[in-house]
């Protein structure tokens, strides 16, 4: 552990995932001490930010005691031994509720455990509770009329981003060291950007989606939100790789810790023209410029890239998402549509409007669109792009009753997200500065398919050079 980590053991909640796991392994900290510190912090923050849907204090402390007893016997389960985690409430744990942010699934008990959670538990972590999410993961802001909205730890009047709203808020407020989110149209990357944490959307197929709630089987990805690229790598090391329960993961390479933990080398980084850089707010444009300066100093070769028209790619993504989500929800839309919130019901109804031919053309175009993307970027390793055109707007500005600009604001929020899901490429969001108002700004590092580890290596180098990811929100009275 570094000096910061040793001193942070006075408040174990401040430790990163890697630091906490190392401190437990080295017997400088017990799992019970870490769990108790996180529970204490949750108690203080939860009323302000609504990050959790369930806090399982008693069972978590019991599991922590079991971890400490095992360690005393010399029995270390894995690299995350004794670390409590919480995940978006769409990752099933057998015998536990998974409400998926909805009234429709209220009280539903999961019959099986998701592969991602099972793998994290096999690595030694255990469950502290379940985290807030947009209803059925179908919303980019963190609004949820059923659960109450999640609130940004940096300013509770502002959105967290969604749909992994609780994951972003809880990690930012240091209530958990890391959390799983899911990303179908930006749901890991938007909360990472708005809450000032590191979020990783892996290559489609790199992580099993088995026994996680589906939204769009063509676009869904499973990944971590954490305090650093290093911590994202620790989670990826545990969860990545093939799983017979999810055929899309068949043939996916195992995680290469050497590449992720090594130097990124002299990467060629592309800065897109047009779509991703037009109409940015000054704070975001300035953060992008500063990041380019940092990356140059790290030895990166920066070039301009002209990508194929991203508005067409985004439209295809939206058609695929809308139709698949509506098809999945059709039985409930027929029988209990009034149990959905207004925003999600409207989105699900939109999916009725696309024809079968439109849907299948959008689906068939995915391969050619990825080929065109790869041809356009040539030998570029990573594209750098904003995560969103601005820092977090207020909850009121993005509510259904938020006036005529609300829908336009929501559309603008997701503008830079959908192409990445459609192309299935990996994207790491790293904190890259603050707005004039003090809200976090994140940038996307978008990679080539299955080159996830290179993004992590670049993210680690960027974070070592900048320190933006170290900022911690303060609980206001």
């Amino acid at each position, binding site marked *: 552990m570094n000096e910061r980590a040793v001193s942070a053991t006075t408040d174990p909640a401040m430790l990163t995932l890697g630091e906490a796991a190392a401190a437990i392994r080295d017997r400088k900290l017990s799992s019970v001490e870490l769990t108790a510190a996180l529970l204490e912090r949750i108690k203080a923050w939860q009323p302000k930010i609504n990050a959790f849907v369930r806090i399982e204090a008693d069972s978590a402390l019991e599991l922590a005691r079991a971890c400490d007893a095992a360690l005393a016997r010399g029995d270390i389960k894995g690299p995350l031994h004794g670390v409590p985690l919480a995940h978006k409430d769409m990752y099933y744990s057998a015998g536990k509720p998974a409400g998926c942010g909805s009234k429709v699934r209220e009280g539903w008990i999961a019959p099986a455990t998701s592969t991602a959670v099972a793998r994290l538990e096999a690595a030694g972590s255990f469950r502290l509770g379940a985290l807030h999410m947009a209803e059925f993961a179908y919303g980019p802001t963190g609004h949820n009329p059923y659960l109450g909205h999640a609130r940004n730890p940096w300013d509770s009047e502002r959105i967290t981003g969604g749909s992994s709203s609780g994951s972003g808020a809880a990690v930012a407020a240091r209530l958990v060291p890391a959390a799983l989110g899911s990303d179908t149209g930006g749901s890991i990357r938007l909360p990472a950007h708005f809450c000032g944490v590191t979020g990783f959307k892996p290559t489609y197929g790199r992580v099993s989606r088995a026994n996680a709630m589906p939204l769009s089987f063509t676009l869904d990805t499973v990944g971590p939100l954490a305090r650093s690229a290093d911590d994202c790598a620790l989670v990826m090391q545990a969860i990545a790789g093939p799983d017979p329960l999810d055929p899309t993961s068949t*043939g996916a390479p195992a995680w290469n810790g050497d590449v992720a933990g090594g130097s990124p080398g002299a990467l060629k980084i592309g800065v897109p023209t047009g779509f991703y850089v037009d109409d940015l707010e000054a704070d975001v444009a300035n953060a992008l410029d500063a990041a380019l300066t940092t990356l140059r100093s790290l030895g990166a070769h920066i070039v301009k890239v002209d990508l194929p028209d991203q508005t067409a790619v985004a*439209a295809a993504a939206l058609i695929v998402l809308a139709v698949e989500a509506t098809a999945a929800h*059709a039985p409930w839309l027929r029988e209990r*549509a009034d149990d959905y919130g207004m925003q999600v019901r409207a989105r699900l109804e939109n999916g009725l409007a*696309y024809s079968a031919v*439109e849907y299948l053309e959008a689906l068939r175009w995915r*391969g050619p669109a990825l080929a065109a993307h790869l041809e356009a970027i040539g030998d570029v390793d990573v594209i750098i792009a904003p995560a969103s055109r601005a820092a977090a707007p207020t909850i009121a500005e993005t509510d259904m009753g938020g006036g005529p600009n609300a829908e336009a604001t929501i559309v603008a929020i997701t503008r830079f997200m959908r192409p990445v899901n459609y192309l299935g490429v990996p994207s790491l969001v790293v904190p890259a500065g603050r707005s004039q108002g003090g809200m976090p700004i994140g940038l996307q590092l978008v990679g080539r*398919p*299955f080159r996830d580890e290179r993004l992590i290596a670049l993210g680690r180098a960027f974070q070592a050079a900048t320190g933006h990811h170290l900022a911690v929100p303060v609980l206001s009275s």
Partner: protein
Amino acid sequence: MPDVDPDRIRMMAEAARVPLRADAPARIARAVAPTVTRFGAEKLALALETEPSTFAVVQRREIEP
């Protein structure tokens, strides 16, 4: 340009057996029109042999040995 008028949406919802409120087809038409129009404007002419799994073929060429 593709037809996204409320009548088409009403018929598609009926075919899917999903009941809609009276004002929903017009709202949906307004919401999806930009996406349908933009996608239609692409005038895709995909090769006969292209299928959804073509994506996996392109994607997996990038796996490093």
